[in-house]
């Protein structure tokens, strides 16, 4: 078994006084393509924020590429190679696409030209949009720009929150295709959050299901597909007894 790229151990965090994540143990090895699913409020976004360093860990630790990064702030983790395409894309709305992309490279100390070529090869659509102010583009274009911007940081772990939310099916197909390209040809490890469980199972190698701030299920995509019913229980908010959870988690 190769060394983990990302390893969270007993991770607890939340907002204000309210804990959201309870004791998360997640281990991801290089080259994985992981889909993160779960009902609303399960803690998916919170987990990504904890990994990227926007939320400090209350307990537990986060290790990345063999280093304990628990105490690092988001900036340092970004420079170390964790990139998050956050919910709502979080583009710099007043900046052009080119400025958005360039900034990401220079901020993390990466070469601009080479990475820009790489991103444009992945999303040729962006080529003609380079001069556009990003806030004026369509949702799909913005998502491409956001993912492209994430790649400009030369991450070894790319995390995408809400990959397909609010986008037309044809655009989603385009993004899923790009995702596998990123994964396969660039060799970047990916975690993405997806509302559509089927889409997640079809796209990812491995699916992690969160419920009530805990990992409820963590298994290869085919194994998860086989337990579709239990998944639905979770999405409907039905409790799953502790025993079942353990069994599933071990699978």
């Amino acid at each position, binding site marked *: 078994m190769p060394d983990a790229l990302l390893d969270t151990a007993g991770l607890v965090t939340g907002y204000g006084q309210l804990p959201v994540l309870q004791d998360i143990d997640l281990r991801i090895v290089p080259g994985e393509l992981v889909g993160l699913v779960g009902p609303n409020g399960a803690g998916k976004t919170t987990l990504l924020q904890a990994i*990227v360093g*926007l939320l400090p860990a209350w307990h537990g630790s986060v290790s990345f590429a063999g280093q304990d990064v628990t105490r690092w*702030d*988001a*900036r*340092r983790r*970004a*420079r170390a190679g964790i*990139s*998050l395409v*956050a919910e709502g894309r*979080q*583009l*710099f*709305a*007043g*900046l052009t696409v080119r*400025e*958005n992309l*360039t*900034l*990401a490279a*220079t*901020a*993390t*100390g990466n070469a601009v030209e080479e990475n820009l070529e790489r991103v444009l090869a992945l999303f040729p659509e962006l080529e003609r949009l380079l001069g556009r*102010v990003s*806030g*004026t583009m369509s949702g799909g274009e913005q998502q491409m720009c956001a993912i492209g*911007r994430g790649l400009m*940081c030369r991450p070894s772990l790319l995390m995408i929150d809400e990959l397909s939310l609010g986008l037309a099916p044809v655009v989603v197909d385009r993004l899923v295709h790009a995702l596998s390209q990123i994964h396969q040809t660039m060799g970047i490890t990916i975690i993405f959050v997806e509302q559509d469980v089927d889409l997640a199972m079809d796209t990812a190698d491995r699916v992690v299901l969160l419920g009530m701030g805990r990992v409820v299920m963590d298994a290869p995509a085919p194994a998860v597909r086989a337990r579709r019913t239990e998944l639905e229980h979770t999405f409907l908010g039905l409790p799953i007894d502790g025993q079942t959870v353990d069994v599933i988690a071990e699978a």
Partner: protein
Amino acid sequence: MSQAIVNGILTGGLYAAFGIGLSLIYGVTRVISAVHGAFIVIGAYLAQSAWMAFGLDPFLMVPVLLVIGFGLGYGVQRLFIDKVMRRRVVMTITLTFGLDLIAVTGILLVFGADLRTISVPYASVGFDVLGARIPLVRLGIFAVAVILALGLELILRRTQIGTTIRAVSQNRTAAELLGIDTGHAFGMAHGLAAAVACGAGALLALIQPLQPFMGLSVLLIAFAVVVLAGFGSIAPVLISGMILGLTENLAGLYIGTEYQRLAIFVAYLAVASILPAGLFGRRFYAH
């Protein structure tokens, strides 16, 4: 009439230079910086001191003041404002007014309470255009003010740090996710703002006797300029400065000089209440 318009525009350039930094700071950090007036006064005193000590022309002192002002602004941002930036305006205004009082006392202790002026040899040189006299000093002040404004615009639009500042002002979280040192970026923004303020101080020293407590009236002008301009990019600030200069001069000529200052505050409140977003809209570099 033509004289009043000339005066209004020339003085308006200086008013704009007072306001530009304030507008930039607010646009980027959402902080109304009351210490801004002190930066201008510090610049003025330093220009006057250089004049006294070395006979250095205040216009030539501007580049030096830009550097000093940058340092001051960067320091104030990193040391003080960073910590409280995201709190309510009540907090940030109290903090910056506190810094202003400290700065004013510092000026008083260092330079004393005596009036200080700069008297350049070309003070009475000027030329007449269409029945209005254009004093060379005023023209120089206007030109430098405009250059400072355009220079700042260029930095914000065309340079790496400018892009970073705009990015940070639009989305701080995203900037952090990209590994941008947001604290540094805010510091740079405040530094640039204070640099312009300090440079504008040299211009002020050319026309106004210096007193340690003059910062407040300068700050009020800066407030008025940015309220009119609406915290947009640089061009509206320049125009607003001139509108204020013209308001003041035309009111002085046609209504009476005693109403000059009242006219500024009336314009300020009228625009604030009728067009809360300012004359030109309020978004900062949001195109």
